[in-house]
């Protein structure tokens, strides 16, 4: 069974702080996605990364795909209360067709 490990599981920070969430696997991803889920809603896609070493930016969010395509990180600069939610990484592995989800990181940003 291919597993995605996400860390940390919970993160509680003050507005304006920076944070990084990690997603790791012992297997190589063919692609990796990051989703954000707000309470009472379904996950919404933030980004898809495909190429090893790829970096994508979405306003204050920076997503990085490891060179070996076994890990990824999400960095948020100057977090705001609106960033509060559950952040999920999800990967496709070369041998599989379904997305494998990590357990998620619950982020709480207080003002």
């Amino acid at each position, binding site marked *: 069974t291919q597993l995605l490990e996400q860390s940390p*599981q919970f993160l509680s920070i003050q507005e304006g702080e920076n944070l990084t969430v990690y997603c790791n696997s012992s297997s190589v991803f*063919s*692609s990796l*996605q990051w989703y954000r889920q707000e309470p*009472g*809603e*379904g*996950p*919404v*896609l933030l980004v*898809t990364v*495909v190429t090893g070493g790829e970096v994508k930016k979405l306003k204050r969010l920076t997503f990085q795909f490891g060179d070996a395509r076994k890990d990824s990180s999400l960095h948020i600069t100057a977090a705001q209360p609106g960033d509060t939610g559950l952040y*999920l990484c*999800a990967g*496709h592995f070369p041998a599989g*067709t*379904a*997305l494998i*989800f*990590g*357990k*998620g990181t619950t982020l709480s940003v207080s003002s």
Partner: protein
Amino acid sequence: DVKVTQSSRYLVKRTGEKVFLECVQDMDHENMFWYRQDPGLGLRLIYFSYDVKMKEKGDIPEGYSVSREKKERFSLILESASTNQTSMYLCASSLAGVLETQYFGPGTRLLVL
């Protein structure tokens, strides 16, 4: 905008009841998925379908069945609900292709008493 709707936001059922969860998407997507989401366990795939009348088991299909008679509709059936099926159920759809975005519905929170 893609819209994925689920028939109920909240549902309370008794042990042994047959439960139907309905999901409808309006973007002509080929793929549809059913997940359950539990605290500390993340999203786990129950079943998915890549075409009408086609289905594939996910990671946790036991106790569930599915039906896809029309392209836009994917139903999840709990033949005899049990308390350990109390969970948040999420439906998603996507175009065919591995890198395609999955669009999720708002979820159905099911409580089995």
